């Protein structure tokens, strides 16, 4: 077997967790994040986050109260302690966001280097590449035509209008092997910041300054242009609503508690409020979003918006091209089918000789099959042999050795070429091969038909299991192919896809997507050609290949820098992981409230009703210690969960029911239990160090 390329990717979660683990503990990032975290305390920017903004306002209030007590000579230690930890709560939240942003920044720096001042060779007349004038890359306008020669950086995004060259795109994709760019066809898009390593190109600029692919990538990885995604907005509303509810619950305590004795102090009520409102998820929400995008970036996929990442999690239908995604790019010999009177071995030997000069993967696969199946080793090319190469006209190739003509090729062409009578047995074999999804090649020796070779599309190993996993996740896979229905059906069955579109035209794809969307399904697809552009634009998630055309790259809402359409599957997983992380931490945050009540309620009312001490189930040392412990826990839990927020909750492709059961157990039940333990522990420590 020839080696299999491109490799099937591992699941996104395992791949990304490794990367993020190291980055999180990167000292430089942490140092810079601390500075950013302080800068983010600016209330004007914090107001976008209602929960943390509330926390900040309350922190300021308690600080003022503590200072007033200190100035007037009152008891201020407790208030100062609460104020300090409330500020830390805010700071931990902004820190989480800063760390998430910092992780993308390193990538942005390297991208920026590629964008550094380059001089463009602006052609005076687009059709004359001898006459050009220098122009700063940043001054290029849409539609300008520039010359790029070996050693030049391509000044901006564009379309090759003339020439062919190899281009090193490592600056953008991280892949150092040069790729071919040429005018016309599906390989005509070039990216600013990449370098022509040989030959030359004439490029028409297609991006306005400041909005090139590289610019967009930089702002994307830095999170500068980040907008809240629909689910994030909905979650924000829920959190704001809960904040208001608890604000009411706490504020009204002033009136309710004054019935019997003194109402609790503002400091204590502030502590109660902040521990009850969902600060954990409120503090981590934007970090989760940024980290989700970052995970995609690390995976070498650029999404134009967070909305697209979120939509990826919602996808119900995946449209996958057959070639390169589901099957290996080329067909391989799978069987020898001799006509009556010819042995399989005889056919195999003839086929080997006919293919000796054939360097295509198909030809080599015939040699491999003959060796593995029939022990026919390939002889060295005889000295006097003459190779007959394949041409599109003859559709036949072969070898003339020792005066014998060995030929193989498309069945009808070969029959015509050798002038043999069509054999019914051969026709039957050919028919059967076509029906099972294969391609038949006929073999002849000295004008005599020996039989057929069955060439098959080889389904990528492991892909069937991936489709099964996708099905468990509730995602239908649809194979898109230009093959006829028979062939397509056979391959679809072998690969285990749920549906296929045979003899697909771009219009077919578009129609399929629209139909699925009309039923309320979200569709994802990958594509690279200009033909794919309408479908990419129509799909909810359109993953364009970096090697593809400019039209495709603009139509899609994600670009895969590795140009591997199989990654669509991982993109879906990353989208799901993002949503799961949000849901899990929200659940955790809300579930935390139960324990906090048990810590704080007895503490604040114990003055009025000492008997309420019975509710102090954690047996916390003193009211002050109980309140402070809850506030400290509430702050520390944010920091403790930052790695989880950045890495994302582990995702395994199981059904929704199993996923819910597991996550509810961990984050729901865990969210109820964890603070009981945490608050008790903090109380013990406070006690141990003699603070309370």
């Amino acid at each position, binding site marked *: 077997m020839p080696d299999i390329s491109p490799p099937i990717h591992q699941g996104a979660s395992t791949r990304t967790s490794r990367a993020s683990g190291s980055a999180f503990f990167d000292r430089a990032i942490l140092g810079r994040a601390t500075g950013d975290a302080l800068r983010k305390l600016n209330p004007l920017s914090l107001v976008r986050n209602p929960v943390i903004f509330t926390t900040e306002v309350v922190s300021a209030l308690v600080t003022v109260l503590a200072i007033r007590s200190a100035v007037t000579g009152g008891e201020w230690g407790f208030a100062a302690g609460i104020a300090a930890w409330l500020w830390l709560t805010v700071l931990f939240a902004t820190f989480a966001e800063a760390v998430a942003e910092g992780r993308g920044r390193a990538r942005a720096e390297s991208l920026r280097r590629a964008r550094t001042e380059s001089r463009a060779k602006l052609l005076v007349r687009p059709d004359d590449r001898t006459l050009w004038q220098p122009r700063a890359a940043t001054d290029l306008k849409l539609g300008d035509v520039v010359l790029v020669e070996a050693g030049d950086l391509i000044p901006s995004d564009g379309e090759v209008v003339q020439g062919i060259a190899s281009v090193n795109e490592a600056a953008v994709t991280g892949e150092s092997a040069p790729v071919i760019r040429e005018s016309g066809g599906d390989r005509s898009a070039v990216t600013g910041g990449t370098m022509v390593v040989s030959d030359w190109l004439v490029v028409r600029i297609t991006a306005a300054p400041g909005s090139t692919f590289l610019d967009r990538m930089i702002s994307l990885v830095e999170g500068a242009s980040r907008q809240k995604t629909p689910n994030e907005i909905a979650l924000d509303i829920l959190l704001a*609503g809960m904040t208001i509810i608890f604000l009411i619950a706490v504020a009204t305590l002033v009136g309710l508690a004054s019935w*019997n004795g003194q109402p609790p102090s503002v400091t204590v009520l502030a502590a109660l409020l902040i521990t009850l409102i969902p600060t954990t998820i409120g503090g981590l929400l934007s970090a989760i979003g940024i980290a989700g995008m970052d995970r995609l970036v690390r995976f070498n996929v650029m999404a134009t918006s967070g909305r697209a990442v979120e939509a990826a999690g919602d996808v119900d239908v995946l449209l996958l091209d057959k070639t390169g995604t589901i099957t290996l790019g080329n067909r391989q010999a799978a069987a020898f089918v001799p006509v009556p009177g010819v042995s399989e071995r005889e056919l195999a030997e003839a086929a080997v000789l006919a293919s000796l000069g054939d360097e295509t993967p198909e030809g080599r696969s015939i040699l491999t099959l003959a060796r593995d199946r029939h022990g026919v080793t390939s002889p060295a090319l005889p000295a006097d042999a003459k190779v007959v190469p394949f041409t599109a006209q003859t559709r036949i190739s072969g070898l003339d050795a020792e005066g014998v003509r060995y030929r193989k090729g498309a069945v009808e062409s070969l029959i015509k070429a050798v002038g043999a009578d069509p054999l019914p047995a051969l026709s039957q074999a050919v028919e059967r091969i076509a029906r099972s999804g294969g391609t038949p090649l006929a073999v002849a020796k000295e004008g005599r038909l020996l039989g057929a070779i069955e060439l098959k599309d080889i389904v990528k190993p492991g892909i069937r299991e991936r489709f099964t996993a996708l099905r468990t996740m509730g995602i239908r896979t649809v194979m898109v192919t230009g093959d006829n229905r028979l062939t397509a059906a056979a391959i679809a069955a072998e690969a285990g896809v749920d549906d296929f579109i045979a003899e697909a035209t771009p219009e077919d794809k578009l129609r399929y997507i629209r139909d699925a969307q009309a039923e309320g399904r979200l569709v994802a697809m990958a594509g690279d050609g200009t033909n794919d552009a309408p479908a990419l634009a129509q799909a909810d998630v359109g993953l364009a290949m970096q090697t593809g055309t400019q039209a495709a790259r603009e139509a899609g809402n994600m670009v895969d820098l590795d140009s591997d359409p199989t990654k669509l599957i991982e993109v879906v997983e990353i989208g799901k992981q993002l949503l799961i992380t949000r*849901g899990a931490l929200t*659940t955790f945050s809300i579930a935390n409230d139960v324990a906090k009540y048990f810590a704080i309620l007895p503490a604040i009312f114990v003055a009025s009703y000492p008997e309420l001490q019975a509710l102090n189930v954690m047996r916390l040392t003193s009211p002050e210690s109980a309140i402070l412990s809850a506030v400290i826990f509430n702050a520390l839990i944010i920091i403790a969960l930052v790695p989880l927020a950045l890495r994302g909750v582990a995702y395994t492709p199981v059904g929704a029911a199993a996923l*819910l059961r597991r996550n509810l157990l961990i984050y729901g039940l865990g969210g109820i239990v964890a603070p009981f333990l945490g608050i008790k522990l903090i109380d013990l420590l406070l006690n141990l160090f003699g603070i309370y």
Partner: protein
Amino acid sequence: MTILGWAQIALVLACVLLAAIPTGRFIARVAAGERTFLHPILGPVERAIYALAGVDPMRGQDWKGYALAMLAFSAAGFGSLYGLLRLQGVLPLNPQGFDGMPPYLAFNTAVSFVTNTNWQAYSGEVAASYLSQMAGLTVHNFVSAATGIALALALSRAFAAGKVSQLGNFWADLTRVTLYVLLPLSVVVGFAFVALGMPQTLGAYVEASTLEGAQQVIALGPVAFQVAIKHLGTNGGGFFGVNALHPFEGANALTTSLQIWCHQVIPFALCVTFGAMVGNRRQGWVLLSVMLGFVIAATAAIYAAEAAGNPLHLAAGVDAALGNMEGKDVRFGQALVALFTATTTGASCGAVNAMFDSFTPLGGMVPLFLIQLGEVLPGGVGSGLYGMLIFVLLAVFVAGLMVGRTPEFLGKKVQAREVKLAMLAVLVLPATILGFAAISMVLPAALSSLANQGPHGLTEMLYAYTSAAGNNGSAFGGLTADTPWLDTTLGIAMLLGRFAFVVPVMAIAGSLAAKVKVPEGTGTFPTHTPLFAGLLAGVILILGGLQFLPSLALGPLAEHFVMLAAKTF
């Protein structure tokens, strides 16, 4: 607690469930405008009503049209009832010659019956004429219940179909529910009550001589049929001041059991209706099981607390076998009182067959907490279902993300707009209950109504606003309710509890109806499983109940622990 007691509870609940299934399916048929076995008799009546009112039952309304029709109908109902109560002194059917109700009380009472609350700041037998009771209060017992059911049907339709704008016709729903559901059931139950010894007369009160030779006035009236709809429509407003504890309103264990059956059957049946309307019966069962679970748990909590009794009484030598019998009648017993209390407060009915004020602190906390949880367990007729569906949307949203998709319920995506409206609705209860209660606890004009000191006093005030905002209508007791402050603020609380909740709910219905119905798959968040039932229960407790915990800690919980410490006020 005794086995016999639990057997009574199980028997009544079993009868409720057995009846809820066919009733629920029947309501679904009525909602769809299908022909039922009652059509030969009531069909012409229905058509006559449409003809008289100029209503085209086939003309659908969008959420705004539906909500506006409901608001207009309720406003008209309020106006006419207010007028009737004010003018009852000069209107017929007033054998006792009662005067018109004073303005504050009439406002409070009119709001109370229009909102299906039936909070009673008056005592029926000394303040309401027969005309007011029959043409005013009883009529609203029917139509406020039908309004609630209609709204629930409209919301259910939003889940049933994809990409529609119309939620049905309010006038048709109102008419059909009244005619085919409430009226027939009330007639049957009314006759049953008459057979069980409940009065149904337009005659004047009877004067009697007691054995000691004293003169006594025995209040009578058209009781049986009003009590039938009072329970069937989860209204709860008693004909008599002491409600189902009055011997003519709750004669014996059988009457009380039938009353429990009445105020449970339609709320539970509507879960079945929902399942039928959205084409997912299991979904209906999940909602029903959560409601039932809470009812059983609450009953057990009350039963346990009351059967255990008050340790201070026991220490004083009271027979421990009976438990705490203060405020309860031996003809019902602890088990039926516990079940009645849990169901009447869980169902937004508000009828009582015992005095909560005399319960043990924990026993009294349960009804309070049940109302605070949003009146969804099983809640009032209709209002229970739509309130529960709001919790379902929140549960789906919070936990639904955990399966890695935009949360969806029955194929409808739950997005920012729904979350916003749901949070608006959920805010109403805490804002109204805690807001008014907190002000009242520092306002001398309000505090003068309180009969008790200490945490019990707080509970009494908290309960009044809870009952009003939850549209329950039961009274905890110990509170002089007919004061300008309480009449007015409790009236406002009732209005907010009904309409400030319902309008966002209808907006949600409109928004959901317009959405595509996403087909279900293995990646869809499963909402018809026991796991989801557990999740929903957790969300109701945490999102619905947690905000009330501080106030409960200061009220009943404090009272409980103080009692254990043998301290009194």
